């Protein structure tokens, strides 16, 4: 068996926002081809983790480090991380009025790949990806996330992920607010990227895991991972909630 290739290494990560500690000593390693799921209550620090890996300026790392393929991410700005192959699917993607989706996608892919795109080849790629996500062409002339439903926004996030072909995909509650069909389509997108990337999926619900099969499930409480296991852990959380983890930190999954 080939040596695992490390994509993301988080070591003893402490993060504060405006002086308030959010992450309190996180450790996590994701190798290429692995799907990790992080579950936990609201306020546990899950979204902070995703934002801080992407480089959000509001979050201050007070201790510890994040390495992407061995490089300390401290050295990279947000867009340099994107160009290096890190992708974040936002829980609440921003609206960019007046900027058409088609233009935005092309420019974004061009920036990340750092090479001029051939119009025809890109269009073909775009058609294939949109087909896989069952998206209509009309979306390309709409403004980025402007007037989009929750499901449309998430689908556009996944489309960007397919086009940008990241090595590390961070998916922040991408499954929230999706109906069954949309969930299936989003899962299809994730499964397409997963084999060649490291995936970190943040979710509240087990139901996405009917379509995406995680290698590891982690539970976050108060800014740290309190328990890690396999897919069965997600089922148990669905059934029993998080209380048993808080009252009995030494308990078994």
């Amino acid at each position, binding site marked *: 068996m080939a040596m695992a290739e490390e994509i993301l290494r988080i070591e003893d990560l402490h993060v504060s926002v405006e002086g308030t500690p959010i992450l309190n000593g996180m450790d996590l390693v994701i190798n290429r081809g692995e799907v990790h799921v992080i579950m936990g209550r609201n306020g546990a620090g899950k979204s902070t983790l995703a934002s801080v890996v992407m480089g959000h300026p509001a979050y201050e790392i007070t201790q510890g480090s994040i390495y992407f393929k061995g490089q300390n991410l401290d050295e990279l700005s*947000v867009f340099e*991380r994107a160009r290096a192959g890190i992708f974040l699917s936002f829980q609440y993607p*921003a609206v960019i*009025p007046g900027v058409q989706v088609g233009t935005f996608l092309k*420019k*974004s892919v061009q920036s990340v790949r750092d090479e001029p795109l051939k119009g025809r080849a890109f269009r073909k790629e775009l058609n294939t990806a949109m087909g896989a996500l069952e998206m209509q062409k009309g979306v390309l002339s709409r403004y980025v996330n402007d007037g989009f439903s929750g499901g449309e926004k998430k689908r556009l996030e996944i489309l960007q992920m397919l086009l*940008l072909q990241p090595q590390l995909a961070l998916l922040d509650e991408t499954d929230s607010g999706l109906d069954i069909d949309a969930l299936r389509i989003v899962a299809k997108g994730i499964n397409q990227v997963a084999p060649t990337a490291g995936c970190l999926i943040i979710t509240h619900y087990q139901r996405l895991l009917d379509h995406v099969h995680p290698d590891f499930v982690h539970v976050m409480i108060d800014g740290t991972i309190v328990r890690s296991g396999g897919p069965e852990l997600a089922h148990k959380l669905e059934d029993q909630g998080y209380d048993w983890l808080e009252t009995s930190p030494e308990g078994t999954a």
Partner: protein
Amino acid sequence: MSDDAREAVGDYQFGFHDPEHSTIRFDKGLSEQVVRDISELKNEPEWMTEIRVKAYHHFMEREMPDWGNCGSLHEINFDNVTYFLRSSNATENDWEDVPEDIKNTFNRLGIPEAEQKWLGGVTAQYESEAVYHSIREDLESQGVLFLDMDSGLKTHPEIVKKYFGSVVPHTDNKFSALNTAVWSGGSFIYVPKGVHVTMPVQAYFRINAKNMGQFERTLIIADEDSSIHYVEGCTAPTYSTDSLHSAVVELIAMKGAKIRYSTIQNWSANVFNLVTKRGVAHENATIEWVDGNIGSKLTMKYPAVLLKGEGAHAEVISVAYAGKGQHQDAGAKVHHLAPNTTSNILSKSISKNGGRSSYRGMLQVTPKAHGCRSKIVCDALILDSDSRSDTYPTMEVGNSTADLEHEASVSKVSGDQLFYLMSRGFSEEEAMGLIVNGFFEPFTRELPMEYAVELNKLLELEMEGSIG
């Protein structure tokens, strides 16, 4: 390029200028004699000379406006302006005959290529007079007149006499008086009844000589049930001293006619840009101003429409970009003088690096103008805390049947937008450029494509080196 010069052109790629190539140049300063000399040199009919002289006296007596950025207006030294400059001896009709340095300037602006693809006709105004003028044969055969204003006066004095000053009289304001006294160049267009000019007709204006005032005068008449789209684009080269641009544009849309007048002006940062634009729309006619203001030291410009006939419609879409040391005082005026007239005003402004943009608007509905509708939307985007945006709306509504809407918003670029775009591989500057282009998009989409592309490029350049 020196730093001062770079600042003056705002790093704009077209901020170059050629050695002055002038055959006739008047001394600086203004007097009745200068006005008479200009008129004589052009062999104008006496009535035009008299209008000029009257306007000159009105200009001298008229006080400076005491509103807007009036402090800055007093910086204009009228004695330090050249009021007439003819850059070549005759109006050229053939590109081959245009002097080489002038041609270089236009080549760098890409005008000949643009003409091949786009133009219905070209009047390229180089300094005071048109040096190059062509009109497409299909326009000519439809009876459309498209001439520089001086030629228009020579060949169709009866039309000019009837309409010149009928929409913007010289007594309108101090700068319309100045323009009327010393005007030179500009376009004269007459579209006959029922003729639809399907391609936009375009003119390019530049000012090149130092302290060179530019006082072009444009008159467009669209006869009944005709239509035309006129486009002008301005770019200005580097300057070391202040420069004055004061144009007058008059539009007349007869019954059922439609005129769209699109402008992008990008003056260098020391130009005073004081322009009076006004149109009259008769019964069921439409006048649309699409007006983009970038650069200049101070712009004061409020495209206006008089809705004189029942069912007439006005559309004013404007954008303004105020950078360092710049004040864009722009807006729109619509006068609903007849029943069932409608208007839409959309104004968008961006202020950056201490720039200031103001929306100044006037909406009037007269007592007998029943059943009017008007919608005004003003959006301002402020890119940093040094910059400023104000709104000065005025409404005079004379009856209770009017349906009026006014929306105004001031926004900043959000951190969420920047983070989102940067997470997609855009640098902070690129992200700002994208947001700014998006903000102006409702304006940009109204422009012919080459202008839209140029405007987007320009805004992206404006965002460069701005973050930090």
